[in-house]
């Protein structure tokens, strides 16, 4: 055997073992989410049909080394899911083998990845401690511009101020350029305001049939296909409301297409796309895609059959242990079980579960309705005699310099009862403190309102915070909080206002009834 053929044999053996190794790494670690066939498991992004594993190896290497976080568009779908970093698990050789396997099997032969490439990226990113976001990766390693159906695209730019489409045949272009990628983009003008562009091209129809053209722009323009004006958008305005969709019957082959566009001032956007006879999705000819942003999943939570709704997940502008109650009369409450305080009152829609109940549900959800009044923040029950008996740990300080510090409060949350109509009575207790806080929907001063009954059954006076840092003014025998929420003492001791703090103090056995309604 000649040395060269021996070398060839060795090389091919080495390649073969690398391929086996790549398949093994993939099937052991990657297939659990991306699927043995690269098509993704349920809810997890595929590699097949995705741009991500193609192109520069650095992008894929970064993802494998440090992981990925946040929303990412893959093959036309948006995923919001974390990929755990594998840099500490896999050697350079194993990452190279796995990516070579992925690029060969699922990315249409995007080319082998070498351990040296992985080592180089690893060296560059040693200080990277967090997973990458899609935006970061695409900024560093963009996808290649796809060739579109627009052949011989030429753009001409005109400078001037127009409020209607001018007669371009009478104008002289200030600039004329070929755009071989076949993508229309107003940025090609190099200008922001007061310009026009005319693009001409040959539209390549892959077969005979109906082509639905989608056209929109900010500010205005016209679309010509086969010499005929098929759509026009008139006047100064944004994209969205004036979007046109026009069907055109085309023969297989090239058809002239022309787009006239004028930007007056402000945003500059052109949207052009089409759906051919066999296309399932719109194919875009402009840089801006008019993908209607995926409508947020909405799961309204509301009172049903006269029974109040409840929501126990993270509500915005109150504490993590808040309990939301949506009453059938259109008033809503968020009670903080951390602070033992009514913290939010609002009207209209109660909560939308669409955010917390889809994907991982990270973050807080704001109330779904209107007139959200933030009543207070911080402890809602205090002892007149000083600090309480319940130890709580609060986080103090920001960044890396923080500690837990003990705070003594008067009482802790003990739970709640729900009556047949779902109306809550919250309970709190501490040494010498026992407080119930009941809420019922009821007309107050002729308006839909909430009747609140606070009852103290301890052996010492307790002060309940009704509002903190809210403007309050007296009107018609009520205190008006935040300019719109009326609070009335219906029976029992009178609330007291001092230093932007509205409180009521209950002696042992005392009850106060309060009425809340919007003016």
């Amino acid at each position, binding site marked *: 055997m000649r040395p060269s053929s021996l070398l060839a044999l060795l090389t091919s053996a080495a390649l073969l073992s690398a391929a086996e190794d790549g398949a093994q790494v993939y099937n052991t670690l990657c297939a*659990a*989410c991306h699927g043995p066939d690269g098509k993704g498991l*349920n809810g997890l992004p595929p590699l097949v049909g995705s741009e991500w594993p193609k192109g520069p190896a650095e992008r894929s290497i970064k993802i494998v080394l440090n992981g990925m976080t946040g929303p990412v568009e893959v093959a036309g779908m948006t995923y919001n899911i974390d990929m*755990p970093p594998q840099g500490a698990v896999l050697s350079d050789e194993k990452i190279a083998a796995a990516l070579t396997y992925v690029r060969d099997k699922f990315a249409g032969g995007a080319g082998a990845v070498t351990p040296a490439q992985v080592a180089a990226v690893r060296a560059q990113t040693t200080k990277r401690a967090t997973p990458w976001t899609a935006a970061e990766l695409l900024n560093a390693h963009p996808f290649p511009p796809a060739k579109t159906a627009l052949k011989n695209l030429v753009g001409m730019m005109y400078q001037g101020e127009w409020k209607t489409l001018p007669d371009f045949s009478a104008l002289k272009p200030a600039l004329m350029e070929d755009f071989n990628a076949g993508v229309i983009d107003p940025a090609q003008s190099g200008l922001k305001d007061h310009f026009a562009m005319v693009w001409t091209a040959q539209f390549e129809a892959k077969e005979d049939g109906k082509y639905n053209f989608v056209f929109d722009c900010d500010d205005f323009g016209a679309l010509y296909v086969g010499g005929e004006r098929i759509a026009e958008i008139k006047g100064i305005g944004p994209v969205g409301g004036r979007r046109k969709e026009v069907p055109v019957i085309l023969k297989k082959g090239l058809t002239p297409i022309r787009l006239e566009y004028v930007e007056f001032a402000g945003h500059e956007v052109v949207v052009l796309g089409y759906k051919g006879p066999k296309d399932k999705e719109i194919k875009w000819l402009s840089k801006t895609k008019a993908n209607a942003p995926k409508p947020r999943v909405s799961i309204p939570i509301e009172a049903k059959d006269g029974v109040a709704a409840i929501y126990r997940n993270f509500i915005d502008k109150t504490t993590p242990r808040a309990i939301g109650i949506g009453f059938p009369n259109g008033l809503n409450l968020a009670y903080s*079980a951390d602070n033992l305080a009514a913290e939010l009152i609002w009207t209209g829609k109660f909560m939308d579960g669409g955010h917390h109940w889809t994907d991982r549900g990270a973050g807080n959800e704001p109330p779904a309705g209107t007139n959200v009044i933030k009543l207070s923040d911080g402890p809602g029950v205090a002892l007149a005699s000083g600090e309480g008996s319940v130890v709580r740990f609060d*986080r103090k300080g920001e960044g890396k310099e923080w500690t837990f510090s003990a705070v003594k409060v008067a009482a802790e949350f003990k739970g709640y*009862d729900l009556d047949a109509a779902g109306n809550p009575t919250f309970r709190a207790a501490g040494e010498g403190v026992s407080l119930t806080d009941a809420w019922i929907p009821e007309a107050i001063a002729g308006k839909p309102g909430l009747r609140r009954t606070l009852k103290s059954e301890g052996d010492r006076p307790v002060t309940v915070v009704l509002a903190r840092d809210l403007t309050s003014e007296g009107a018609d025998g009520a205190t008006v909080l935040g300019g719109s929420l009326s609070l009335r003492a219906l029976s029992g001791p009178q609330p007291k206002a001092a230093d932007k703090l509205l409180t009521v103090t209950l002696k042992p056995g005392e009850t106060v009834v309060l009425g809340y309604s919007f003016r």
Partner: protein
Amino acid sequence: MKHLTVIALLACVAGLQAAPAKTPKKGKLVPAEAVKAAEARQSEFYERVEIPTPAGEVCEVGSIALLPGKKVAIGTRRGDVWVVEGAYDADLSKVKWTKFASNIHEPLGMFWKEGSLFAMQRPEFTRMTDRDGDGRADRFETICSKWGVSGDYHEYAFGSDPDKDGNVWAVFCLTGSFHSHAPWRGWGAKITPDGKFIPVASGIRSPGGIGANGEGDVFYTDNQGVWNGSSSLKWLRPGSFQGNPTGNKSYALADFPAPPEPQSGSRILTERLKHPAFVPPAAFLPHGKVGNSPSGVGCDLARGKFGPWQGQMLVGEQTASQVQRVALEKVNGLYQGAVFHFLGGFEAGLVPVRMDQEDGTLFIGGTNRGWGSRGSKPFTFERVRFKGRTPFEMRAIAAKLDGFEIEFTHPVDAAAAADVENYALDTFTYIYQSSYGSPEVDQTEPTVKSAVVSADGLRVRLVVDGLVRGHVHHLVVTDVKSKSGETLWHTEAWYTLNELPTSVTSLKLPPVPVDLSL
């Protein structure tokens, strides 16, 4: 050359070599294929059926409780609690669901006691009671809410059933699984019936479930990530440190002694010998080979009604939609043992695992919201029952000073079982480090020197040269059949050898601390 000379020569060569005379049959099984093949045989031994959930409702099952009168309750991730009648019946089309509570906060642990359902919600441990008997809870008593909740979606709280003293054990995931932004994140605690909060263990990362064995010792699953080279089943020994120092900030909350500050890039064995409170995983569930994200922890105490696994742990697996079986033993005061593939083909990613110990019915629930799974449905509630035909399996593996003893479920065919060539062993461990996960490292290949079959044929004693303390020992058994000719349902096991069963115990575990209740 005469035959005898050849043999002598070979024997001499073998004697000179450190390596085994026979090549171990390793790498013969690609895990995914082996698992698929085993799943295909499952229906010979077990019946798996889906229990219809309430029509039109999203029931991402996060907890399962057993109620008197053959009723079962499920708690969903959206926070609804449903009670079903008829879940044990042959005809599941007639199950009847009633809603017990709405929109509590992601209950991941639920049980029935003294006329109430108790739920470990994310922010509190709660007793839910239907006082007026209309089928809906009307009293919600917060028994304990002493742990911090920062508002992070990943701060899951999993709760156990009550122990013999009525205490409920809970594990609190780190903030975002990387930080400890609120008190007791990354800790395990015991909650007494009167609501006292007793921190019992630190060093937790991201649990997927919690449950006790027959002795009442509590275990939880912890997922691969920072300081976890691989996912594992861990023993929540009171006073223990579980390996992840992220939650160490909470030591200051209770005047505990200074926490262990382990060294990254080391090995668990090295660090736990330095820090005696560090309890190593009872069983690694090797990442990618056994599963990717372990979840619910159950125990088979059904006295044979679910098969011959009395006392063994059943561990749910989210990504692979499976249940694994873990047979533990206690050696030198530490739990250790082997994990085997067991049940698979479930319809979603598994979260809770609940065994009815009286009846031998295993209920499982699942969801793949936010975390994908092999099972392709968004959520599932299922029932598994033993059909009565015992599969030929390795029932358990026991560590011996010089090897292992494999216990089989049926007597083995002695000739094949005595052939050392039918056992391949390799070992590895993980880097114990602050970065995410670890490769398998420090690989070795021990030699099986002899395999001795017990008189009743149920045990095979392997004498092994080269056991490694602290390593996972991966065993592949090939061509061993039962006396009646059955092949093994599953051929692989991963035994975590924390300790060798020496007669002299060198290990000194710290005493269980006096309860510090808060």
